[in-house]
């Protein structure tokens, strides 16, 4: 028992924190800190790669192995988990919340370390159950509906997976990650779709994404950090495993499947972005942003060229970093302000400077600007799509990137820029936990943005066996057949532009220092209390442009499906009329049917 101990220790730490939270505030904080330290110590010192482990269950043995892919994603989850625990220190929650938090982490790590399809399924289900429990302890919104939506979407996906697992077993004789021989392409595509479905749900691919905005909105704010940055990677991991190990041949040979999946990803990216900039709530905006960014990941993975796949995986790491910092800073703001409504925020730049920097760098990364971590993945993805020759797809993804600018600006403007509201005069910077987590997140945003080679090297390690491609990167540059970028150069160029505009501002001499509350509107003088911050109907004109598009709703479709089921159940319910005379007639008719069945033999 080596690596599994990580999960077991996490579960133990969960119980410890549960009892700590039950007793005293100090003990709660102390046990959370122990949890963070313990997880990190174990992860740094005791994780043993490429070791098979089993949990024997008598008739079945769950098998685990920390392969290079598992290790890569496990580290993302560990980092997201420990960083999200820092803000958690400041939140007062029910003791069970902490227990479920650690349980979710423990089962997520077991899922990533799973070495066969059934083990993966079992731990994946437990992860979903733990998340469901956490969602039931949510803090806002319609909690029952949100939690039920989440678990039902997850379970439906998981049941399809179970079906796919059995069919795969039937054709290949094993439940491992290996491929299937001697089956038609159509069967392979069908099995792939069944197996991949729960992972599509997990990364909120449209049209299975409806659980995500509500879940992110409802959940406690520090959990949302772990939820978006960490737990969604379980979904990415599942897809990577299926595509690299089980269905690599299918993706390489088939012409349509990669295109379809890439387009699904692209549409998710675009629509997610649109819903994001139409949102008036900070958490919902970030939720859609997360969905949109994971759409890019799916484009990369789905297209299945060496560059696009590497780009997809890299961008999922970027997603962890910048969504992490975005959710952390927004959580800090919500903690201080008590609201997540963007229309009621404004001008917090002076009050919460570190949060501002964090959010700013986060949205710069989300927009894919060098030298942040958001750039290499996106650049490589564009290169890959162009190399494949798919100009429509590249236009779609480009369009989606524009929406990233739009929602990024809305976010930073509504919260930090513009006029400060009167009731927020005494707001302080976010508490220490949030600030420390923000600062820690900022390090990889820049470091891996400038030196993406570090990560690409790991990705190359596990993608080369499948794609057999050459090295396309160095420490700080990327090179493809059609392009080349040296990131420090791009970073310096950006800095130079910034410096240029700053110098221009300094020497222009026409600026005048005004107080944050000093404002004007159309020639009228307004006093300090007048809410003149531009935050209402921020992209109102967009609603006219995109209005019809936004009426399309996957949720309405799924609700319709549910209604069909319920209608059918109303129909079958009427068989049980309640009148015993009808029941006796059923018996008689049934008997007559039976007699007819044997009639031929008499």
């Amino acid at each position: 028992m080596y690596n599994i101990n990580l999960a077991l220790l996490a579960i133990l730490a969960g119980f410890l924190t549960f009892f700590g939270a039950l007793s005293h505030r100090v003990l709660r904080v102390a046990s959370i800190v122990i949890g963070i330290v313990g997880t990190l110590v174990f992860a740094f010192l005791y994780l043993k790669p490429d070791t098979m482990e089993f949990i024997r269950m008598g008739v079945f043995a769950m098998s685990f192995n920390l392969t290079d892919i598992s290790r890569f994603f496990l580290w993302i989850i560990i980092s997201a988990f420990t960083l999200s625990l820092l803000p958690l220190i400041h939140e007062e929650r029910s003791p069970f919340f902490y227990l479920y938090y650690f349980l979710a982490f423990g089962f997520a790590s077991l899922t990533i370390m799973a070495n066969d399809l059934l083990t993966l399924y079992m731990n994946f289900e437990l992860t979903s159950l733990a998340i469901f429990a956490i969602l039931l302890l949510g803090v806002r919104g319609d909690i029952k509906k949100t939690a039920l939506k989440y678990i039902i979407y997850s379970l439906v996906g998981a049941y399809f997976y179970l079906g796919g697992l059995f069919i795969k077993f039937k054709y290949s004789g094993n439940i491992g990650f290996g491929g299937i021989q001697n089956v038609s392409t159509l069967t392979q595509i069908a099995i792939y779709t069944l197996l991949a479905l729960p992972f599509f749900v997990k990364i909120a691919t449209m049209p299975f994404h409806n659980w995500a905005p509500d879940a992110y909105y409802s959940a406690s704010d520090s959990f949302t950090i772990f939820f978006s940055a960490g737990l969604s990677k379980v979904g990415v991991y599942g897809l990577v495993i299926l595509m690299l190990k089980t269905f690599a041949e299918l993706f390489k040979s088939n012409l349509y499947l990669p295109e379809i999946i890439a387009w699904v990803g692209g549409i998710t990216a675009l629509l997610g972005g649109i819903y994001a900039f139409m949102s008036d709530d900070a958490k919902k905006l970030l939720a859609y942003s997360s969905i949109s960014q994971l759409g890019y990941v799916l484009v990369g993975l789905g297209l299945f060229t060496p560059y696009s796949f590497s780009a997809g995986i890299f961008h999922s790491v970027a997603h962890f970093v910048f969504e992490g910092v975005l959710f952390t800073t927004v959580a800090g703001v919500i903690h201080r302000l008590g609201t997540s409504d963007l229309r009621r925020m404004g001008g917090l730049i002076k009050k919460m400077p570190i949060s501002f920097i964090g959010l700013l760098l986060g949205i710069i990364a989300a927009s894919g600007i060098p030298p942040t971590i958001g750039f290499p993945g996106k650049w490589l993805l564009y290169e890959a799509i162009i190399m494949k020759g798919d100009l429509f797809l590249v236009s779609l993804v480009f369009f989606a990137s524009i929406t990233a600018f739009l929602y990024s600006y809305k976010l930073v403007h509504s919260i930090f820029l513009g006029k400060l509201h009167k009731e927020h005069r005494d707001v302080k910077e976010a508490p220490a936990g949030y600030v420390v987590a923000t600062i820690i997140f900022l390090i990889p945003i820049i470091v891996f943005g400038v030196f993406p080679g570090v990560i690409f090297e790991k990705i190359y390690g596990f993608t080369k066996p499948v794609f057999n491609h050459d090295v396309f990167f160095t420490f700080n540059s990327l090179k493809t057949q059609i392009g080349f970028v040296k990131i420090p150069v791009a970073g310096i160029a950006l800095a130079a532009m910034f410096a240029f505009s700053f110098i221009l501002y300094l020497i222009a001499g026409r600026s005048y220092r005004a107080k944050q509350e000093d404002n004007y509107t159309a020639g009228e003088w307004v006093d300090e209390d007048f809410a003149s911050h531009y935050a209402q109907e921020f992209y109102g004109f967009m609603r006219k442009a995109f209005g019809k598009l936004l009426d399309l709703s996957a949720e309405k479709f799924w609700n319709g499906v549910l209604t069909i089921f319920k209608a059918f159940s109303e129909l079958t319910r009427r068989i049980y009329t309640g009148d015993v005379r009808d029941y006796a007639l059923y018996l008689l008719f049934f008997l007559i049917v039976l007699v007819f069945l044997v009639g031929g033999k008499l």
Partner: protein
Amino acid sequence: MVNPILIIALLLLFAFLMPLLGLLHRRLPAFATLILPAFNLYVAVNHFLKMDFIPVVIKTGGFRPPFGINLAVDHFSLFFLILVNAIGVFIALSYLLEEQDYRFHILFLLNLLGASGIILTGDLFNSFVFLEILAISSYALAGSRKEKPALEGAIKYLIIGSIGASFYLLGVFILYKVTGTLNIADIALKLQNAKSGIVYLAGMFMLVGLFVETELFPLNTWAPDVYQGAYNRIAVQFSSLISKAAIYLLFRITFLIFDDPLFYKLLLVVGLLTFVVAEFNALAQKDLKRMLGYSSIGQMGLAVLAFALYGMISHPEAFFAATLLIVNHAIAKALLFANMDNMSENATIDIRSVNPFSSLMFAIGALSVMGFPFTLGFWAKIEILGILLRTNLLFLFFLIILIFMVEAFYYFRVITNLFRGETVCRRLNPLLAFSLVVFSIFLVYQGFYPIFTFSWLNRALNALLNKAIYISIIAGGL
């Protein structure tokens, strides 16, 4: 080792002695009700572990079979005996302190007698007698609550049940006429090679009777009303005791006597219809007990469906899946229904105020019925999907998966309400709480390490499948 005939004899004796015991001390009937199933359990487990893998014939009245009535004890019967009496202990223990009316205890013991008798007997008419004892005591138990829903359910059950039992008897008569014997093994022997048409008709008549008790479509129409109206412990009895004894008889008789593709096909269709209709009906329910009742019916349908697949794939895994599902369902439903005592009267699916302990118990029971990983039900579900895939009927495979999704939906709908309601702390019956905890620990422990259930189940099924030995030993006991 103790002679299993004592199981039947003592139950009957104490049932008759109950009024006297009630006069002696008001708590005495309850203790007797607890001790008897416990004793039966001890006898059954003892035999299960120590007996050779050869069925044992217990003669009664000094006559050897096939002339005399005999009990046929093999591991398959012992397995069900253990299950039924474990549930009996569960019910007796949970309600030990509460029920003081000795009339309930008489009925309970008679019910247990009927169930144990069905499981132990080797004689066909005897099976009818015990079936009637089971049925009539169930009618009375169902109607023991003096309120309209319960009485309504009981009357409907009485009417349908009586008709069904009459047809079962008719079937028995026909078989007697054709084969000249009433011994199950002997009938199986005589009918092994050539079945005349009238035998099929007899089989159909007997199935009608059994379908009523096993809650199969379209003869289960009484069941939702009974589950909704009766006391919770009676609902436990129906879901985990009565229907399990009846399904034992169904399996035994079908496999031994009517081992014919026509019967398996019929069971397949009936099982599938039961499962589909019941699970969809559960979706439409507002009343929580009625929903659980439909879920019970659905699981019985699924078990019969699994059993019937043996006819298609001839693989013992079908029996394994069916019996594992039966075990899981008996325990999980007992947990769910008994737990209803901790919830408010007439609980609907929109429960508002909840007791944390009862929420947890409901969650564990529901997760096991759904077959969530790390509960016993998960292994049952895996087995069922496995045999479904063996049949190569992909449509059926995906239909069952679809219904599983429906099941998950209506259970999680309730779980969401349970864990989000206002917390209320009700006074719990300590013995009931203890029994609930024991069952929930069993379900989760077996979810992690099912080897215990699996090994016992395998032993039981080897006995069932060894038809030749059963017939030769019991019929040839001359």
